[in-house]
């Protein structure tokens, strides 16, 4: 029986060879191609639905409007009335990640979010924006973030390091959560999919091994159920990433309310 290799799907291949400039390989890989497809699809979709915008929205327009409202409500409910300012950033994050996750669910398209490099870039970008906004709005008052108000002075030597560590871990968890969810989901799908084939082949042997067909059908049912679950996860992880970006922005935007 062929060796099952669930990690094979995450291999990066060069599609268009381009020269290396200043130590950076500019080749278009399957990961880059999938990201371009995701970004292009969002732009086309949003341009198409707003080109003929009507007061009573059609089907496609209401999909776009509900996505807009989802992120808008999220930003307003977490950041408050200043959420509108950060809406473009949060919506871009949400739409880009969701498009990458959703296109990645189709077997022919690579999943860029299953690469730690991609998720780490998005996480570092988010944290850099949080730092820039924090310093631009509060100046050195930004460091008040690490000193929770209403804590007895005796506890501060304990609380400040904890707050600093929890701040430093944020980009790490942000990157690892998306990466782990996508890689985990795809590996599970792959393994259950290979059960369908291998148990089916086992069943062909006849005799007691005919029971393998039952296992094969069972595995096929679980693949269908898992696929549905993975579509939910693809949406939910994009939503969670956007929600956490809002929470981190809220920490620095409304610093004086703490």
């Amino acid at each position, binding site marked *: 029986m062929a060796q099952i290799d669930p990690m094979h799907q995450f291999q990066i291949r060069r599609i268009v060879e381009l020269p290396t400039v200043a130590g950076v390989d500019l080749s278009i890989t399957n990961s880059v191609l999938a990201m371009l497809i995701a970004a292009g699809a969002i732009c086309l979709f949003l341009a198409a639905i707003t080109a003929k915008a009507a007061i009573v929205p059609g089907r496609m327009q209401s999909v776009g409007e509900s996505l807009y409202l989802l992120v808008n409500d999220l930003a307003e*409910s977490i950041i408050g009335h200043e959420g509108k300012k950060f809406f473009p950033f949060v919506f871009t994050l949400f739409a880009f990640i969701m498009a990458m996750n959703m296109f990645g669910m189709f077997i022919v398209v690579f999943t860029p979010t299953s690469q730690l490099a991609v998720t780490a870039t998005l996480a570092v970008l988010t944290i850099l924006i949080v730092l820039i906004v924090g310093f631009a709005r509060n100046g050195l008052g930004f460091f008040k973030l690490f000193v929770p108000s209403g804590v007895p002075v005796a506890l501060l030597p304990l609380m400040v390091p904890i707050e600093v560590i929890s701040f430093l871990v944020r980009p790490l968890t942000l990157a*690892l*959560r998306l990466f*782990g969810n996508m890689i*985990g989901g795809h590996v599970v799908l792959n393994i259950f999919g290979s059960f369908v084939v291998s148990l089916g082949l086992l069943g062909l042997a006849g005799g007691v091994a005919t029971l393998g067909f039952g296992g094969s059908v069972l595995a096929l049912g679980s693949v269908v159920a898992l696929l549905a679950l993975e579509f939910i996860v693809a949406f*939910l992880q994009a939503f*969670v990433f956007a929600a956490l970006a809002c929470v981190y922005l809220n920490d620095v935007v409304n610093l004086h309310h703490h």
Partner: protein
Amino acid sequence: MDPQAAKYIGAGLAMLGMIGAGIGLGVLFGNYLNGALRNPSAAAGERPMLFLGMALTEALGIFALVVAFLILFS
């Protein structure tokens, strides 16, 4: 012991960390439903916090997964 076998056992043991994430998610969603069924009108407002808690709980489980991958593929 064969180092390759020890690697696989270690990766399996690392995944025990998922137990905690599983218990945490159960407590989280159980309590959310508990509250939501008592006061359905307040349920929608707490949903972002639910997903936030889910994300933070899940991150710990994902750490276990990452450690398992590190053991398996290093």
